[in-house]
């Protein structure tokens, strides 16, 4: 097969869409043909450059909040007007009955956030902030192997202001998790990853953006894992790092 035919397939190969048999043949050809292999290298670099250059625009935090708010179930049902007419009495009774229940729902969340904030602050105050010190994700990720009952992907940081500092093992409610430390300019961000559980879910339902002692906290779930970012860095940085972590899962 001439090189022209192969060169057409290089992109498909780099997109991981070439059937296995053909991919093997192409690999063998690349091994022997320097023209095609330098072409493949250039194209894979181009693919990577586009990947980085293409992530050019981030939504403003204000816009994110607007969209988030637009997804909340509407409360301006006409029935509400009717309910109001029926009397504040009914509402008051409901509040008396449900109030303690709602409060109790708030308590686990508060406790959880306090605990995570404490973990973050303890790390910052510690002389040995992390147990595996490396900015290389290929060093940090394997370190957790065998220490955690799950695995996770580290985000792509190339071209970003973030730097991976390292990681260590941590515990929340007796279950083990990973604490990853990232630096952005002078700020430090802790990323906690735990196995998601119904308890965590219940405590954190709808709590996407939180603040505790003026730390920014964000939490979400992906692939059965519960992620937290805690930091004194600004919302834009939190959003950016979150997006990178989310992208790493996919």
């Amino acid at each position, binding site marked *: 097969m001439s090189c022209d035919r192969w060169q057409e397939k290089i992109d498909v190969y780099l997109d991981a869409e070439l059937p296995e048999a053909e991919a093997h043949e192409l690999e063998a050809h690349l091994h022997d043909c320097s023209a095609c292999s330098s072409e493949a290298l250039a194209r894979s670099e181009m693919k990577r450059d586009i990947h980085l*250059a293409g992530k050019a625009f981030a939504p403003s935090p204000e816009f994110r909040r607007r969209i988030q708010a637009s997804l909340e179930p509407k409360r301006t049902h006409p029935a509400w007007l009717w309910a109001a007419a029926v009397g504040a009495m009914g509402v008051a009774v409901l509040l008396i009955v449900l109030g303690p229940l709602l409060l109790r729902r708030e308590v686990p969340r508060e406790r959880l956030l306090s605990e995570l904030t404490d973990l973050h602050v303890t790390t910052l105050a510690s002389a040995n902030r992390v147990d595996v010190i490396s900015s290389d994700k290929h060093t940090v990720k394997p370190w957790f192997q065998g220490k955690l009952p799950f695995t996770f992907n580290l985000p792509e940081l190339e071209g970003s202001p973030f730097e991976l500092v390292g990681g260590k093992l941590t515990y929340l409610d007796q279950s083990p998790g990973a604490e990853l430390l990232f630096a952005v300019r002078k700020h430090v961000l802790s990323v906690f990853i735990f196995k998601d559980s119904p308890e965590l879910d219940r405590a954190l339902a709808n709590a996407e953006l939180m603040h505790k002692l003026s730390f920014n906290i964000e939490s979400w779930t992906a692939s059965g894992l519960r992620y937290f970012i805690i930091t004194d860095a600004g919302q834009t940085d939190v959003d950016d790092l979150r997006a990178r972590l989310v992208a790493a899962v996919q």
Partner: protein
Amino acid sequence: MGRDRDKAQEFEQLAMPLFGPLYNLAQWLTQDRSDAEDLVQETYAKALKGFDSFQPGTNFRAWIYRILRNTFLTSRTGLKATASLDDEEADVAAPATTDTPESLLLARADHDAFQRALQQLPVTHREIILLCDVEEMSYREIAEALAIPIGTVMSRLARARKAMRQLLQQWATGAHS
């Protein structure tokens, strides 16, 4: 009411993680911040409204990208951007002739050059490159998002990349146009 609430919550859980990437694509398509916000807002409104028609277990990402894209295509900017591209699929079988060695030239292209090149590409080329290389969608997912057959995904992608390489090459050799 409870069911609606669950539905809304489920939608939020699926849709909010895609908020950043959808916005990024929207701004690449519209080339304007406020148009991009309008586009994303309309996409979320339509998707939430039509969420009942989404089949659980199928690809949500492709589904919502498709909504974003259809919304864009029927918008003012979208109609303008795609008006001249009707005959685009005509030369599907055109072989990708090998250009002069590109390795050296491409190595010198910088971050800005890639962004400028993406901006200059016709919108159908820009979007398919972004879906493949930035969103890292599979060909199947792209086919779903763009509502075209996989064969067309491959040929269009090849054409788009070739156009992008040619742009970068022109610049690298100093032939600014």
